[in-house]
């Protein structure tokens, strides 16, 4: 039973770390503000949902689990709210979401 819980928490932690890394690469390399925010906010929520339960499985039933649950709830409440406020502020300031021209256009014009 302990082995199963260890393996499950290992899988959760490694997949969560992968999501974190993908979010970082997307934040750095995507061409547009809205695409960057898409990458950052979605992977933030997913990595939180994977990493904190992975640690929770290691902690067992203790006070640490309750604290981790509180962190999870707060991050899940505040992350999408902050993303919404950020997108709303950017939209109100006149930044239009538009398709990226160079990636699509280069591929069709080069071939």
């Amino acid at each position, binding site marked *: 039973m302990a082995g199963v819980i260890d393996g499950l928490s290992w899988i959760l932690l490694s997949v969560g770390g992968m999501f974190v890394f993908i979010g970082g690469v997307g934040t750095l390399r995507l061409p547009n503000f809205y695409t960057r925010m898409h990458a950052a906010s979605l992977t933030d929520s997913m990595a939180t949902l994977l990493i904190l339960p992975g640690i929770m499985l290691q902690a067992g039933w203790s006070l640490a689990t309750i604290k981790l649950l509180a962190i999870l709830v707060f991050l899940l409440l505040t992350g999408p709210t902050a993303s919404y*406020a950020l997108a709303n502020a950017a939209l109100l300031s006149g930044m239009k979401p538009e398709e990226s021209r160079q990636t699509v256009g280069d591929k069709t014009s080069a071939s």
Partner: protein
Amino acid sequence: MYYGVAFAIFVTMGLAMVRALLGPTVYDRVLAVNTFGTKTALLLAVIAFLYGRQDFLDLALAYALINFIGVLAVLRFFQNHQTDKTNTREE
């Protein structure tokens, strides 16, 4: 296994910091700082179990809340700040 997750979070914090320094608009920088703060809370939770010091979980909780309030305050500041300027786009 904690080391791998901590390493991935560190790399992502570095990438977000690069985006915060590069970012063409102020919203890119706010986005990168928000990512950085969320990853700080996750990293503190991982470090609490990496070194077996469970006090760090309280710090992670405080960071999660302070990060949210900070991002909202910065956004409100820039929203009020930029209403008198006509063109805020820079690409």
